[in-house]
């Protein structure tokens, strides 16, 4: 396997890592500064974020997820977050497989699973808007996922629901409460859709701001960013 092939496999693995807050791949967001194989065969990945003070919990999740994805290729792996106030704690913690609580001794009481789930629920709501927006006028409360023609947005919504342990099969209701998985009653549909749209707007606006900040901070494209 050539270094180039390995490099593209590493990038493909990194494309599976999402910013949990923005629900977009870190490659597309421009967060991968470099991804290469060193002379001794180690995969070395450098990540970068829009600001020095980006929230350390989300930063930790991205570094840890990047580590897991690349290590799953069977490579010795180093992932380094550059230019961040908590770089040292995060980089050392992930390298030692220490978990979040031990990486931030005395500053965290729990791992980040619940935080991640909270943001997956937002992604489900935002995804609901993406899927339902073209369906105005349909009886959404009685429809199932299988009633909707395939689209990347639908595929993504199914995956997020699956990740949360929510129903995602063809016969699952299209509209569910992302906290309980219960179907949304007909009378609650307008408010549910309003909330879905608002959540998507918020995610889109945050992504826009993060992209703008990153561009100001670094004048180069991230690895895998130009492909999109």
């Amino acid at each position, binding site marked *: 396997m050539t270094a180039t092939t390995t490099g593209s496999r590493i990038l493909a693995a990194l494309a599976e890592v999402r910013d949990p*807050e923005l629900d977009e791949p870190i490659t597309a967001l421009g967060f991968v500064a470099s991804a290469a194989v060193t002379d001794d065969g180690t995969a070395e990945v450098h990540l970068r974020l*829009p*600001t*020095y*003070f*980006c*929230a*350390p*919990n989300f930063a930790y999740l991205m570094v840890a997820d990047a580590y897991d994805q690349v290590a799953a290729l069977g490579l010795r792996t180093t992932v380094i977050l550059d230019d961040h*106030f908590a770089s040292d704690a995060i980089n050392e913690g992930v390298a030692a497989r220490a978990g*979040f*609580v031990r990486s*931030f001794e005395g*500053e*965290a*009481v*729990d*791992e*980040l699973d*619940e*935080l991640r789930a*909270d943001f997956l629920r*937002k992604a489900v709501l935002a995804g609901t808007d993406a899927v339902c927006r073209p369906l105005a006028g349909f009886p959404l409360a009685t429809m199932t996922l299988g009633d909707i023609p395939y689209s990347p947005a639908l595929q993504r919504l199914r995956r997020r629901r699956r990740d949360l342990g929510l129903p995602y099969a063809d016969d699952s209701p299209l509209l569910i409460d992302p906290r309980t998985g219960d179907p949304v009653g007909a*009378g*609650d549909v*307008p*408010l549910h859709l*309003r*909330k879905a*749209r*608002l*959540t998507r*707007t*918020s995610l*889109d*606006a*945050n992504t*826009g*701001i993060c992209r*703008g*900040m990153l*561009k*100001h*901070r670094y004048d180069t494209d991230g690895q895998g960013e130009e492909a999109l």
Partner: protein
Amino acid sequence: MYEKDGEKYFVVDSHMHYWSAGPDNWVPGAEQYAKGWIECFHAYQGLGPPATHWPIEKFMSYTEDDLMKDVFQDGYVDVAIFQPTYLTEWYREGFNTTERNAALGAKHPGKFIANTRFDPRDGDDGLKQLEENVARYGSIGLKLYTAEWKDGSRGWTLKDPAAYRYLEKAQELGIKNVHVHKGPTIWPLDKDAFDVSDVDHAATDFPELNFIVEHVGLPRIEDFCFMATQEPNVYAGLSVVIGGLMHARPRFFAKVMGELLFWVGEDKMTFGSDYGIWEPKWQIEGFVDWDYPGDEFSDYPRVTTATKKKILGLNAAKLYGIEVPKEYQLDAGEGAPAARDDSVGVSSGSPAASLG
């Protein structure tokens, strides 16, 4: 004041700063944080029109003359409200203190309102300081930054009993308006630092105070909106929304404005330039000219001249008791600025009624 097409706008810049962030003010040993903070602010400026960008050296240490020119002479602002941010762990004299702001304000009577702040971790000394600041600077508003670092602590929340003690004191001292700003670090670090639910608690328990959530809770606009719909005393501070999105991401700006107008309502949104991050001039000119860019926004509330007048100045004037000359006031039937029941859910006459 600003005038366009025969309409006159009274402008209150309800969120702006006079900071000192150059290397001469950095705390030895904390230089990386002081530098990281101001560079982060500077990146936000990059979201405005290129002609309004400053070099980092000026951005760190703009002068009184810069401010007076940008905000009042070129920037149309009638009254500007200083919002302090201390950050004394990183900046020797503080980043932007009540004292520094008020000293500038004292030289220009009638132009500024000096808000002060508290930090519940300051204990009894902080309560005394708050009382002194209110007496000395006549503050009726507070700026609270919950993610400030202090002695190893990474921030606080408005739910803390210590914060309630301060809010009680603030109310007793005659404070009316509390501007809240979230940041990325708060203990414990595994929780979402930008969560606004603590504002919800405080707003419920202190109904006499107005809570203006700056940057509309960004990056948690959705949580902010859900909360604001239920709390008659919660307002949306638009700093960063206009500055950070109107030029850089006009379609997202339209959506965010549409959502805010729907959930929070035009009576409860206040303009703030966030100067020195962005100059007010382009923000005010652009906002007065702004409308939704196309039909896909047709189910959002409409934006009228009265909407813009309220947001640019009349709402904040009401909250701060600023006298507005007659020719800048609304005509009868154009609504009541800063009406508390303007949000969906708060008012029975709101668009939420149609949501069942």
